[in-house]
């Protein structure tokens, strides 16, 4: 008789959603199935899973769920339901990107919730950025780098998995050692099974067998530094480098106008091609066909790259930015591009590699050896199992209460300060009612006339004023309905 196996509910997007984490999860499930009876909570009920693994409606995932739960969270709108699931069914959470500000924004999180998360992470900086956010609606790229809004995930997870020591250290610096003691590093895996043969892949793609091919992959965003690459390509081509460049992925003009940037460099445009979004097989063909995968990031928040893992598996030489998690890769297994003088150095490297492709092939072989030793799927799945099992007894922070609390009262004299309100509201989340009490309505009139913009000065950044009304009885004053945001 076969012994009963433990169940595992995995909250994640799934293919065919165009989301790298969906692809990651579909492959990881194949590895986890060696240890658990898996099921997937996914808001696409028709999502694709490996054979034998069922999809369950997230709204019903609590029925029949055991204690073993795994959440896969990335920083884009496709993961909103996973964050909701984490609030109801705590478990182990993989943070593919330590920064979750964009996710919260696209989920429609209240501004107060976002500012509360900013203040929880970096209170000093949040005082400035939060005020700009509240009063002028300013949300810059800097906000996304500075404020990760990962506090809720850390507090509500029995363990947190990240893919690099950089990501763990960054969380630790922001949230402190106690809040991050349960963060474990599990590297990204390489996809199981052999990637296509280089020659066969080139034949399928209609590419010549002997040309030097530079590849970039994924959604084209500004942090992938296509500006550096295009300039370096122009320099290299100008110096006689024989190469072509393919971007195997889709353009997001609202984030980075890749097509326009290429068109502005006719020498590059003559040797460049953007494929648009590719399915997994076509992406594998392009990666296997390439001589060099350029996988730059600046700035980097510690995110991982599925394309990089595929390139390792294919034995394709990889060039990464010498920053964040990419700096942790072995120096002999990838090419590290410094963050200063990047364009010139990149052009030099392109010229050298194009002139002697065997050097790229040799580095690619070392990259594959590294991946086979450290990033094999069975080993990664076993590490997930260990983290899940060790986390079972760890308590999580209770969900923030959302009900309206009874009215708080603060005496509002002429010397009322912002820190007085901050003290009264400290530690509170969600809806809150506060009476700024005055002796009589005449005193209230005096107070508001003497101090124009009174509430703007007094309210903490994390507080959103929902409504205000003048109360004459039982106690005169200003009755404020506030939203103090949730945990984030």
């Amino acid at each position, binding site marked *: 008789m076969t012994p009963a196996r433990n169940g595992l509910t995995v909250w994640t997007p799934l293919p065919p959603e165009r989301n790298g984490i969906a692809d990651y999860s579909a492959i990881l499930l194949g590895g986890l199935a060696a240890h658990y009876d898996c099921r997937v909570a996914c808001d696409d*009920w*028709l999502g694709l899973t490996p054979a034998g693994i*069922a*999809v*369950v*409606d997230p*709204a*019903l*995932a*609590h*029925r029949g769920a055991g204690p073993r739960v795994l959440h896969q969270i990335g920083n884009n709108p496709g993961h909103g339901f996973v964050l909701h699931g984490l609030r*109801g*069914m705590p478990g182990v959470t993989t943070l593919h990107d330590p920064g979750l500000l964009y996710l919260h924004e696209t989920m429609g999180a209240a501004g107060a919730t976002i500012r509360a998360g900013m203040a929880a992470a970096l209170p000093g900086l949040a005082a400035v950025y939060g005020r700009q956010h509240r009063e002028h609606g300013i949300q810059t790229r800097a906000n996304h780098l500075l404020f990760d809004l990962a506090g809720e995930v850390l507090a509500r997870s029995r363990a947190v998995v990240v893919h690099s020591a950089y990501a763990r250290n960054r969380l630790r610096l922001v949230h402190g050692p106690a809040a991050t003691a349960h963060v474990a590093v599990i590297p990204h895996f390489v996809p199981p099974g052999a990637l296509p043969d280089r020659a066969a892949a080139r034949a399928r793609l209609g590419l010549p067998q002997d040309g030097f091919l530079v590849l970039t992959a994924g959604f084209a965003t500004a942090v992938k530094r296509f500006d550096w690459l295009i300039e370096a390509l122009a320099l290299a081509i100008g110096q006689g480098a024989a190469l072509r460049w393919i971007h195997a992925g889709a353009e997001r003009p609202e984030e980075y106008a890749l097509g326009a940037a290429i068109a502005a460099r006719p020498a590059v445009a003559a040797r460049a091609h953007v494929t648009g979004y590719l399915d997994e097989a076509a992406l594998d063909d392009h990666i296997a066909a390439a001589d060099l995968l350029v996988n730059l990031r600046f700035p980097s928040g510690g995110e991982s790259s599925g394309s990089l893992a595929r390139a390792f598996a294919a034995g394709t030489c990889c060039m990464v930015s010498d920053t964040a998690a990419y700096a942790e890769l072995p120096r002999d297994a990838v090419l590290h591009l410094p963050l200063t003088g990047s364009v010139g150095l990149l052009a030099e490297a392109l010229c050298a590699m194009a002139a002697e492709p065997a050097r790229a092939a040799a580095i690619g072989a070392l990259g594959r050896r590294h991946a086979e030793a450290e990033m094999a799927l069975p080993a990664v799945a076993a590490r997930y199992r260990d983290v899940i099992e060790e986390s079972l007894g760890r308590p999580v922070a209770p*969900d923030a209460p959302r009900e309206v609390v009874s009215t708080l009262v603060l005496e509002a004299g002429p010397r009322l300060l912002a820190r007085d309100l901050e003290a009264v509201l400290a530690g509170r989340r969600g809806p809150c009612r506060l009476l700024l009490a005055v002796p009589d309505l005449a005193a209230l009139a005096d107070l508001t006339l003497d101090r124009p913009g009174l509430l703007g000065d007094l309210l903490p950044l994390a507080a959103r004023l929902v409504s205000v009304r003048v109360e004459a009885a039982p106690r005169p004053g200003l009755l404020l309905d506030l939203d103090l945001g949730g945990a984030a």
Partner: protein
Amino acid sequence: MSAAAILASLLREALPEATVLDFGLPAGRVFPWWPGARCGIADPAALPPAEAALLRRFRLGPAGLPVCGLDAAADAALLAGAPAALGGVWPPLLVVEGAAPAALTPLLDAGAMLLQHGLTEAMAPPPGPPRGRIMLLGGSVSRIERWDLLLPAAQLGPVFGRMQAAAQPLAAALGGAAQWQIGGRTVMEQLASIGMLALGTEQLPPLRLPGAALAHDLPHLAAGPELPLGTARRLRLLLGALPARPAWLRLRLRGIDPDLGPGLFLDGLRLDAQLRPEGRDWLLEAPVGLRPDRAAVVGLALPERAPPGALLLGLEVGP
């Protein structure tokens, strides 16, 4: 566990105008068999948050009434006796498992009828005016289930008569009178009893509900007998708890593309369903195993490229 289905079928004939509020969730065994009945939960505080969040999604009928007990504003209006909150005629019939919860006292004080499951002799009589009692025995001779109907004394006789009259045709439709032991008597002016017990295998009436009679989680409401899906790609239906038995679940659909076939789900998990044409409509059907202790949730998912505007004409559970 077929008693709820049989007794609900009899009561529908005896109280055709009644507004029914079944407070049996998280199971809810009567409302599936009574189209138009509202469902609710007697003790919402005891419900796990995730189950409460699930049930809070559902709306019923053209007014989009929520599940009783999970919507503070609607509950307050209901307990205050607001006609629109009730969604039907007074007095309502309240269905409870065991003793009536204190939260229902305002409705009971105002004279609501009560359908109670369990050994009601051990329970305190409900508040409000004196009521007559009809003891209802259902199920089979080997497994008898007891319910009590508490109603205004003046109505006991007429309701008793209508239930008795309804029992024979129902038996005839469910395998014939020889398959059933049917009896009933008036013990005293305010006490009567009716029994309808299966002699062999418990028989159930087929469950057939028009789309608009189902509690659903669509953002819009039904205006006609069917439930229009509009542009929605996913639909959940709160079915209630049905007797445990192998059966077929069928959704009758119109306006779907069979080449982009929908997925059928029960309690969140996809069923091995087949789609077959029936006239200009389509039947999406799958064998299911039902459980009597928890409200079933049926799901329908259309592929992203499926055309909008499909209609759910009805739901059936049967052989």
